């Protein structure tokens, strides 16, 4: 069912916390603020639910970029979840960079429930960045790439 085999269609996983960013994505939708269909959202209760394992798994399975979105610092529904996420991801991303998964392929962004515009902008930027980086060749289980 692929649209055009020649064109690079990145696989992008976006983890969005239920309380802010998922709602922000909903608002982007109801405001009809487009971003590329390459982005697929997974709903998690809080950004702190995102286990580094999930991100490694995504890259292993052929993702070209992973973005984690949560509430703004101080606004996490569970008070402190996004602080944990921020620390964990800082560490993970620098390790991934060291392993050849460039920093541009991973991102943490704070998007509130009211920021539909920011959600769409962020996704547009992120997809553009992934396009500039091209396909991810590191970490990938070669059997997953076709």
């Amino acid at each position, binding site marked *: 069912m692929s649209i055009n085999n020649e064109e690079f269609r990145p696989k992008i996983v976006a983890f969005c916390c239920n309380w802010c960013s998922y709602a922000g994505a909903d608002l982007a939708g109801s405001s009809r603020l487009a971003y590329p269909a390459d982005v697929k959202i997974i709903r998690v*209760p809080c950004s702190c639910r995102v286990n580094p394992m999930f991100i490694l798994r995504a890259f292993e399975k052929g993702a070209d970029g992973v973005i984690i979105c949560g*509430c703004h610092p101080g606004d996490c529904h569970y008070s402190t979840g996004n602080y944990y996420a921020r620390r964990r991801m800082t560490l993970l991303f620098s390790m991934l960079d060291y392993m050849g998964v460039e920093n541009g392929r991973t991102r943490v962004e704070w998007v509130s429930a009211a920021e539909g515009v920011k959600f769409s902008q962020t996704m547009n930027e992120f997809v553009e960045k992934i396009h500039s980086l091209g396909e991810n060749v590191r970490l990938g289980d070669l059997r997953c790439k076709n």
Partner: protein
Amino acid sequence: MQRIGVFVCHCGSNIAATVDVKKVVEMVAMEPGVVHAEDYQYMCSEAGQAKIAEAVKEKNLTGIVVCSCSPRMHENTFRTAAKRAGINPYMVEIANIREHCSWIHKNVEEATEKAVILARAAIAKVNLNAPLFPGESRVTKRALVIGGGIAGIQTALDIADAGYEVDIVEKTPSIGGRMSQLDKTFPTLDCSACILTPKMVEAAAHEKITIYTYSEVEKVSGFVGDFTVDIRKKARSVDANKCTGCGVCQEKCPSKKAPSEFNRGLNTRSAIYTPFAQAIPNVPVIDRDACIKFKTGKCGVCEKVCQAGAIDYTQQDEIVTQKYGAIVVATGFDTIKLDNYDEYAYNQSKDVITSLELERIMNAAGPTKGHLERLSDGKHPHEIVFVQCVGSRCSDNRGKSYCSKICCMYTAKHAMLIRDKYPDVNVTVFYIDVRTPGKNFDEFYRRAVEEYGVNYVKGQVGKVIPQPNGKLLVQGSDLLDNKQIFKEADMVVLATAIEPEASVRQIATMLTASIDTNNFLTEAHPKLRPVESPTAGVFLSGVCQGPKDIPETVAQAGAAAVKAIGLLAKDKLTTNPCTAKADELMCNGCSTCANVCPYGAISYEEKEVNDHGIRETRRIAVVNNALCQGCGACTVTCPSGAMDLQGFSNRQIIAEVDAICR
């Protein structure tokens, strides 16, 4: 293996116009576990839900995937439908193919492909779902209202009238809020105190209402239906039970130089004071920073003159701990600081004032006893210029991006009141737009222009320059005539933007309620749940949620009360079953998880385990389901991978990742 039914919704044309729903049905039918797939016009309708029930019965479904709008919209609807059809409600997952797909993509092929992938992810998840069973928790039949402005008072009265106990916590020495500072109110021009004071009295006299003034919320724990709150009653230095409110102490107090907060610092008050004459309770407090006794140990005049023997210099702060089922936030607003707006010369001239200061000046109990006069020299003004939108609708970061909503109306009110009482005073209003969308509001504004001859100029003020002769040179533009205007004024009044009361940030953090980038509290849904916070059991009343005038505040206060009453009327609540759970065999009792849990839900127990035939007693993490809110922090922090979150388990999320990256 699950037996999964997939239901693809057209949502009229909302989905079907961009997503080829037939194709989605065809594609998902091939997924593992799927035994039934169909599409329908409106899945959320009666008929749509009936289709689910039918399929459950016919095909013996154990799991359901609905491809539709956001789960934030209809997750509950479909869970309830599943329950009615006889399957566990937590066996339902939703693929959001409207907000996250059809509404943002144009290309049908692309959108359809994405919808299929989102559906696959949901199917992969449901394959790993397990039935979950919500627990029950009790409801404490008492409400807490934080903030005693008109919003808090109205909410408390409505809840109390329904028969429930209510406590109001107000941080200043009296309830009343900003409304008690206003002189007259638009659009009817009735006197603010005349309509507010009876409500304050009613609240104070109500047998179901307890008022804690000069008090603050210090700590909140627990959850919907069962919050535990510590209230700090600050030391008043006056025994409220003995004080008769005679006021002699305030008269005799020799320290009279403290700026009056109530009069916005335009005059002073004594160290022992009640903020205003109609204060409730009518019991003064000693401002320890201004009191000579507290500063030097000498004085003690108030103690000597108090007939009732109510003065108590040794009084300490007191912590009251109370349980509540519901909490209403009504912390209101303040006007913004004008430090970023040097061009209006607010800090240079006493005759440049804010509108709230003008309210005090116009009020008979205010610093000028209600006479309109210049604060610099006490002279009667002849030219007054009003500047609208000071700090509101601001495109740079000096001010606020939003419209403060009330300023157009109160400026029209001020202009009219001044022209009515002092026909010799010329009033000019500089405005960007006049916004009067309310009942009888435009008529009110037109009266100001047509009957009272207020001079409205469309344009902004660039600068206010204090002149050596004491006047103020106002430099502005007239956009309609396209010319510069220079006007000599005696007073300039700034319609200053309003912002949420600063302490709302701490309150929101304590309640884990969310606030937006402007510090206004966020509602659970901007249209459909406007008075509820996303945090269960927390409700919003008044300007803390967004700019409002009094009628709107009172309406919202009533709505918040109804929501709180709806909660208090229940005896039991069902709790979220998506809680954390430690695998007994993997947990090594390291305590890492308990350290990150924001709710203190994790404790440790010595448990008998059977680890592949080895029977021993181990220290194991146990999650209290009533306390766990399901954030998942512990699951990621656990070094042994023992902790997992039900409903969002590691395996489920990985299955979604796999489906998306396939």
